[in-house]
């Protein structure tokens, strides 16, 4: 590699191995270095750190809502404050935590997993991060705007989000924040795709890519197709609010259902944009901790492609009750998604079957992910049936369903990824004992929080209400949910302590603490500037395993001699 020593431009050539090993840690500078960085690893860390802070903010909002709902009556929040909280909680978790956390992890690990020195467009990558931060800050700081933040729900349905329904600047700031975050996601998607297609190491054919990379390619494709319509929809909403437009105003010939089409065209694929990266992470982790190759590599990739295609064709199952969409079509397409999703469960179970499973912390999170996501998937099939959806639409049953998918699924996948890759990102080991305690607390807390919500929904409790009658039998289930949220919160705080303790304890992790299969484990922890000083030959989807096996075979040969 030809590195400029004092200049700003570095011309990188694929020359491996270099004459001298690089320093273990990149030169550390001040805040200016972080502001001006174009290194994909630093940008990845910025994404991961920022999204985690947004997660803490969104979690605090959830805790406030659950405290309010622990008892009938209004105790700590006004109805308007409650509306603002559930709006910004949903927006934060969807736009500012889960989806960008997947992109942040991809930023760090896609180049490493394919043997590339950086992302294809480093400055575009930096711009994506700063736009994301600006979008997030705009959304969260809107609490301080006159009239407070948007209270129109994360879907911002018209006319609730229209000039009469929400006259203050809260909805405008929400629109602008989401537009900035969407632009950031589109740029990252382009960058990830080009990187994965054009910067792979020699020998890393498309059918040897780690499954996390494959899933990021598919996620990027979905971002490119689904984000432009929401950008258009929100721009039209802004025009309706301020520039005299009537796109969604039925009194002037507009259509509120058009807004719902534009929103859910983005909104439903967004669910898969939030889960596919973590399918990939889990599918990279399970083989390592089962000491086996992944079962059904090709099937997994085609199942991800099928999920992507089908998920773009089911948007209006969120609109069954409008009576304005073709319910049988969307119901059938939604049922079909269960097939490729089921294939993934076969992949995971088949990989573990007969393996020598190690129950280290990343593997525990993967198992938790599978259990929770399975339940979310089953209730997903239930609400894909219009008769059931008509009964439970806008009740806590739906709240339970999507939290089992996005919190029980994606959040557990995020923790799996963080525990798996933390040693690579920092060079330090997290305490296994504390990590297992975090898993138990979050798993128990999560299920206490959300399982009872299925029952609440079936008993008729509507979502988005700050108060409920005392005599309908909902109180004890709400109290259990609140207790579960507190336990989850303790788990998250313990995770933060786990991370801080690792930095304080500075236990060296080594380059390959898990005996991983993919290329990121062949470089130092943390990786040097431009990532690699050496790469093994790539002859399968687990090149590092092949290389270690070659060493063992050669050792056995020596012993025989």
């Amino acid at each position, binding site marked *: 590699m030809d590195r*400029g020593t004092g200049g*700003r*431009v*570095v*011309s*990188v*050539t*694929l*020359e*491996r191995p270099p004459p001298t090993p690089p320093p273990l840690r990149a030169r550390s500078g001040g805040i200016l*270095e972080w*502001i*001006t*960085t*174009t*290194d994909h690893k630093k940008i990845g860390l910025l994404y991961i750190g920022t999204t985690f802070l947004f997660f803490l903010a969104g979690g605090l909002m959830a805790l406030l809502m659950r405290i309010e709902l622990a008892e009938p009556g209004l105790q700590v929040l006004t109805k308007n404050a409650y509306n603002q909280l559930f709006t910004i909680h949903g927006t934060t978790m969807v736009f500012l935590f889960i989806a960008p956390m997947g992109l942040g992890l991809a930023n760090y690990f896609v180049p490493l997993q394919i043997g590339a*020195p950086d992302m294809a467009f480093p*400055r*575009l990558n*930096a*711009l994506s*991060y*700063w736009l994301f*931060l*600006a979008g997030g*800050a*705009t959304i969260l700081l809107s609490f301080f705007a006159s009239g407070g933040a948007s209270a129109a729900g994360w879907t911002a349905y018209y006319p609730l989000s229209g000039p009469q329904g929400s006259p203050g600047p809260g909805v*405008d*700031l929400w629109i*602008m924040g989401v537009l*900035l975050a969407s*632009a950031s996601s589109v740029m990252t998607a382009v960058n990830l795709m080009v990187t994965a*297609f*054009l*910067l*792979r*190491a*020699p*020998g*890393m*054919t*498309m059918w040897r890519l780690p499954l996390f990379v494959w899933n990021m390619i598919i996620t990027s*494709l979905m971002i490119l197709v689904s984000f432009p*319509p929401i950008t258009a929809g929100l721009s039209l909403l*802004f025009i309706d609010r301020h520039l005299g437009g009537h796109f969604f105003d039925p009194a002037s010939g507009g259509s509120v259902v058009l807004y719902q*089409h*534009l929103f859910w*065209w983005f909104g439903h694929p967004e669910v898969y944009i939030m889960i596919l990266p973590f399918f990939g992470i889990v599918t990279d982790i399970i083989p390592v901790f089962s000491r086996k190759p992944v079962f059904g590599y090709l099937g997994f990739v085609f199942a991800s*492609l099928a999920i992507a*295609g089908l998920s*773009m*064709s089911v948007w*209006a199952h969120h609109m069954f009750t409008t009576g304005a*969409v*073709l319910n049988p*079509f969307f119901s059938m*397409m939604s049922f079909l998604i269960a097939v490729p999703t089921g294939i993934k469960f076969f992949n995971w179970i088949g990989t573990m079957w007969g393996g020598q499973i190690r129950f280290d912390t990343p593997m525990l999170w993967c198992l938790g992910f599978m259990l929770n996501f399975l339940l979310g998937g089953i209730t997903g099939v239930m609400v894909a049936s219009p008769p059931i959806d008509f009964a439970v639409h806008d009740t806590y049953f739906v709240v339970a369903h999507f939290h089992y998918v996005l919190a029980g699924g994606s959040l557990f996948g995020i923790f799996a990824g963080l525990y798996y890759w933390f040693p690579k990102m920092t060079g330090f080991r997290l305490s296994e004992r504390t990590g297992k305690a975090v898993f138990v607390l979050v798993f128990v807390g999560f299920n206490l929080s959300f399982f009872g919500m299925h029952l609440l929904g079936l008993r008729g409790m509507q979502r988005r209400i700050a108060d409920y009658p005392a005599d309908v039998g909902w109180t004890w289930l709400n109290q259990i949910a609140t207790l579960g949220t507190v336990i989850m919160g303790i788990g998250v705080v313990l995770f933060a302590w786990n991370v801080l303790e690792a930095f304080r304890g500075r236990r060296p992790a080594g380059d390959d603490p898990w005996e991983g299969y993919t290329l990121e484990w062949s470089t130092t922890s943390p990786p040097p500037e*431009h990532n690699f000083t050496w790469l093994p*030959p*790539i002859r399968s989807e687990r090149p590092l395993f092949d290389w270690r096996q070659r060493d063992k075979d050669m050792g056995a040969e020596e012993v025989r001699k």
Partner: protein
Amino acid sequence: MRTATKMFAFSAFFSLGVGTIYWLLSHERAGAVLLLFMFLAPLFIACYLLLRARRLRLPEDDAEGRPGEGAGVDIGRFHAASLWPFVTALGASLAVLGAVYGRWLALAGGTVMAAAVVGLMRESRG
């Protein structure tokens, strides 16, 4: 690049199939138009790849390729640091806040963005 081309082509023709069935069954225009664009967008990329990258032989697509085979191939200019992405995002956020709070802010944001774009271009040339 054949796998990438096939992936985009598959996406396009899947959308065409779904879109056609959807239109025939529902005659609903918003969804049909969205599905039409979901057909056209990946088709455009697939056609581009088919025409421009057909003859491209990348070492990474060689199943027997070794890491050293990429030696000496210039894969681009990587800027080790740049302030302009930060400034561009700052300008963009001021510009969108201007849409909410007043044209003066949008003007300031637009000016910052324009300056940042010039900075990015000059940096690329340098």
